[in-house]
């Protein structure tokens, strides 16, 4: 087969994502200060040599907290997306391929899960499980898997009806060979596109839960939690909201654009 051509913009966005991930991974090296060290003497300072982006009401370095916050926001979003991608795909493929009563029951469960407003359900689950990043991840996984399951199910049902599946049976392929050689390679690319576009919304959802106080636990740095701390000072010190807000915005835009590029490259726009 001829190799796919990747446009320059794809590589630029890939490099930007690598830089974001590198900034989060090497936060302990890059951060100029301890993100959790509070000093009331340094509270609400403007940008200076010691604190390049200023400090929060507890005198903690905003830049350091933003870098450390990226670790929680980006990695938790990646973990949630990867988990729901695998879980949803497995359930959707099983449901769509098996058909019959199994499919009917699983479709009902998917519909019920999707009937609830996502963020409200996530708040309820996180509230029941308790505050903390682990429980935030679990809550969002419980809410998000259904989307991938529904998509995988509908994809597998359409691919199953294609003539090349009949042709594969005529060519002597068994069920397992058909699944791994013909069905999965045809349904995975659209799911990957959906997942890459979903990372951005996952970053927002993790931040939203932390902002609402059911996400990460203080003093852990996280972009949503940083906005929550800064919201009371929005009139006097806007950088407290602007810094984590800009981090969320830029990261979400980069992941979203990268998802779009993956969609173009894999040719699954239609």
């Amino acid at each position: 087969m001829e190799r796919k051509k990747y446009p320059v913009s794809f590589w630029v966005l890939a490099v930007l994502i690598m830089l974001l991930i590198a900034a989060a991974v090497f936060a302990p090296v890059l951060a100029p200060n301890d993100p959790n060290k509070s000093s009331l003497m340094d509270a609400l300072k403007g940008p200076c040599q010691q604190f390049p982006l200023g400090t929060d009401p507890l005198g903690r370095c905003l830049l350091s907290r933003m870098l450390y916050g990226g670790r929680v926001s980006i990695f938790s979003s990646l973990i949630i997306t990867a988990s729901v991608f695998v879980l949803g795909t497995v359930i959707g493929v099983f449901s769509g391929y098996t058909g019959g009563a199994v499919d009917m029951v699983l479709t009902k469960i998917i519909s019920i899960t999707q009937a609830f407003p996502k963020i409200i359900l996530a708040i309820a689950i996180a509230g029941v499980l308790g505050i903390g990043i682990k429980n935030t991840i679990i809550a969002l996984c419980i809410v998000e898997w259904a989307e991938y399951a529904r998509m995988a199910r509908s994809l597998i049902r359409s691919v199953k009806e294609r003539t090349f599946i009949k042709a594969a049976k005529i060519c002597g392929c068994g069920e397992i060979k058909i699944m791994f050689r013909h069905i999965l390679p045809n349904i995975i690319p659209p799911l990957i596109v959906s997942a890459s576009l979903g990372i951005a919304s996952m970053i927002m959802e993790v931040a939203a839960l932390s902002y609402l106080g059911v996400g990460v636990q203080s003093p852990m740095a996280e972009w949503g939690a940083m906005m929550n701390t800064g919201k009371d000072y929005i009139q006097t010190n806007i950088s407290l909201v602007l810094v984590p807000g800009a981090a969320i915005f830029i990261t979400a835009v980069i992941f979203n654009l990268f998802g779009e590029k993956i969609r173009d490259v894999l040719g699954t726009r239609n």
Partner: protein
Amino acid sequence: MCLLKVTGLTKTYKNKKDFVYALKGIDFSIKQGECLGLVGESGCGKSTTAEIIARLIKEDSGTIMFNGAEITGQKRLKCVGKDLQMVFQNPKDSFDPKYSLLESVMMGADSYNLYSKTELRQRAQELIKYVGLKGSYLNKGIGSLSGGECQKASIARAVICSPKLIIFDEATSALDVSVQAQIIGLMRKLKEEKGVSFLFITHDLALTSSICDNIAVMYSGRIIEYGPCQEVLKNPKHPYTKQLVSSVLPINGCCNIPEFNVLRNTEYTENSCDFYAFCQRADEKCAKGILNMAQLQGRSVLCCHADD
């Protein structure tokens, strides 16, 4: 030698509350090296017949003998395996877009472990050339091939494991006339050089007459006329076959196009002739029941009250 013998084949599809009687007991046979044309209107059960024989779907009743053994109710791989191949109507959709032409043709035999990997690759390359495709296409994706080229590739894929019978399920319907002629040429070549038998399902009576030895005309899940192709097309016996043959438009001008209008709305009974509503010669006896197949001048015809 009789390669395929189908007897009393029936199939009903259940659609929530309704039953669709796709096949109502059909019988035919194909000899080694013979090409049987299966013609009839859309929805008459041609593709169902093909898929049952290819063991893609199960029949309700009836027996199918293939290559001397009964294959009724058995799984495809165990009973027919490499000996029965199929070419589908939609040439592009019958190939997985993830694979190149060469890989796709090789897939026709790699599950049967007939050749080593090198032999398989070499044989696929030879067959791609044999069906008239350029060598430069080998590593191209199926998406970059035209419909006709894809159908030729389908034939290469079907032939790679040297089958005894190939079912062409409306394989020429989506192609233009020049490519149709090339496909018919290829079929003749395979028939003469490799002794392959064909079940050629089509709507096109002109194509049938150019390749088929025998023809079976299907209507509403039944074979209503079966016999030597030229004779059936020149001198059709059953009213439906007559209307079908007279519907073929000549290339050099217009003709009297027969009308397939609903002529009577009398309710059917279970035994009514299926063609009763459209038949110009039907009478009240046709509403009451159909007659059995009978031998008539060397061919089988579903007896018709109109001929009483």
